[in-house]
């Protein structure tokens, strides 16, 4: 019996999550990295919460983007190495939707933990409690954007030597607009303003990247397997 694409997507999503949680250190590493980078900031600048609060939005966003970059290169690496990727290409299922399921699983295992731990670190940087919801929303959208853009980068650099450095080089410029609006939203929330505008724009970018990037991933995966 032919498996429907919804079933296939659910299976891939579940399978990837099971694999991710079996290698829990891969989930923990970006979170620890995020915590460390945030710790570096008071050490390098000043322990004064008032000063830290002014830059907290930008710092958290930069640290989260870099942390989310860490796991990206593993997105298709094992599938590529053990031949699963070829089976996906041969399965006759729409590759773009398979890629979407993979991206979603990757975000759940790498982006979501960052979002969940961010309030804790934000409080350490003097961010007031009423800005935490905006921070988490913006980071959820931002890591989502990075996961979708990063999936394209991961598919393009699949199997290359020194692929991880190249991956950052390709993905970071594309993620800059998200950084602008995300950090701005958090900054506005910290200063007690309504951050609706930048959050909506961030949401628009999220929808756009989620819509288009699976197509680019599918094309890149086909190219890598030719």
């Amino acid at each position: 019996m032919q498996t429907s694409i919804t079933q296939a997507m659910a299976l891939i999503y579940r399978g990837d999550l099971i694999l991710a949680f079996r290698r829990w250190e891969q989930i923990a590493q970006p979170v620890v990295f995020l915590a460390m980078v945030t710790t570096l900031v008071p050490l390098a600048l000043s322990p004064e919460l008032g000063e830290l609060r002014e830059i907290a939005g930008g710092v958290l966003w930069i640290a989260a983007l870099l942390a989310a970059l860490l796991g990206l290169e593993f997105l298709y690496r094992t599938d590529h190495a053990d031949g699963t990727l070829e089976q996906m290409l041969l399965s006759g299922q729409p590759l773009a939707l398979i890629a979407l399921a993979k991206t979603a699983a990757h975000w759940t295992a790498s982006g979501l933990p960052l979002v969940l731990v961010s309030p804790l670190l934000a409080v350490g940087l003097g961010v007031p409690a009423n800005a935490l919801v905006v921070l988490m929303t913006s980071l959820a959208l931002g890591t989502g954007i990075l996961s979708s853009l990063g999936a394209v980068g991961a598919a393009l650099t699949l199997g290359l030597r020194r692929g991880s450095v190249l991956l950052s080089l390709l993905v970071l410029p594309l993620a800059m607009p998200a950084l602008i609006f995300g950090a701005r939203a958090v900054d506005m929330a910290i200063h007690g303003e309504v951050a609706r505008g930048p959050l909506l724009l961030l949401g628009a970018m999220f929808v756009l990247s989620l819509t288009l990037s699976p197509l680019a991933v599918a094309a890149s995966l086909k190219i890598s397997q030719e």
Partner: protein
Amino acid sequence: MNWTWFHKLASPPHFYRLAGRITPWLGWPAFLLIVVGLYGGLVLAPPDYQQGDAFRIVYVHAPSAWMSMFIYGTMAIAAAIGLIWRIKLAHAVAAAAAPVGAWFTFVALVTGSLWGRPMWGTWWQWDARLTSELILLFLYLGFIALRASIDDRERADRASAVLALVGVINLPIIHYSVYWWNTLHQGATITKFGKPSITFEMLWPLLVMFVAFKLFFGAILMVRVRGEVLKRERDASWLREELTR
């Protein structure tokens, strides 16, 4: 409509000969127009009443900045043609255009920074235009780096073409985000060219330089695509005949 001329363009031997023939027809006018435009801009045009002679860098800066974006567009169109119709020559065009575009972007950044020194009193200002040019340079470098890291030529062509298309979709988003970011963080920069107030003596050399740079790009592109064809078709028999003739 007859599309034979278009299909012929995709054939490397045909294009190789054609490019060789039209290179001087692009190169010499480019050279002449650059000389005329520079003379007009550096000698004939009156100094600006606010910026003095410093404004004259615009005759190199503005055409370079325009070319930096134009070439990215050209590259993306060539990449799309190569990806959709599997035309190898289109990939060669994209590969040949990228370093030229990166250099124009670099020139635009350097001249912008040189102009900023007397105008803003600093070499670098996080001005919206300079910042988006800088991000554009990163996009070019990513494209070149991706091509360089893939050994298989076919895969390099197609992978970098996907990247160019992703980049060209993101380019307007990046551009407008940077503008928005900039207007929030700093007031209007001190000196900007008053939009319609430029006089004709200042304007015509600028227009000449725009045309000259475009022709120059055309000429360089033809030479570079010929180089790419030589590299790609080095074992082809037509090439041996062509070169020994």
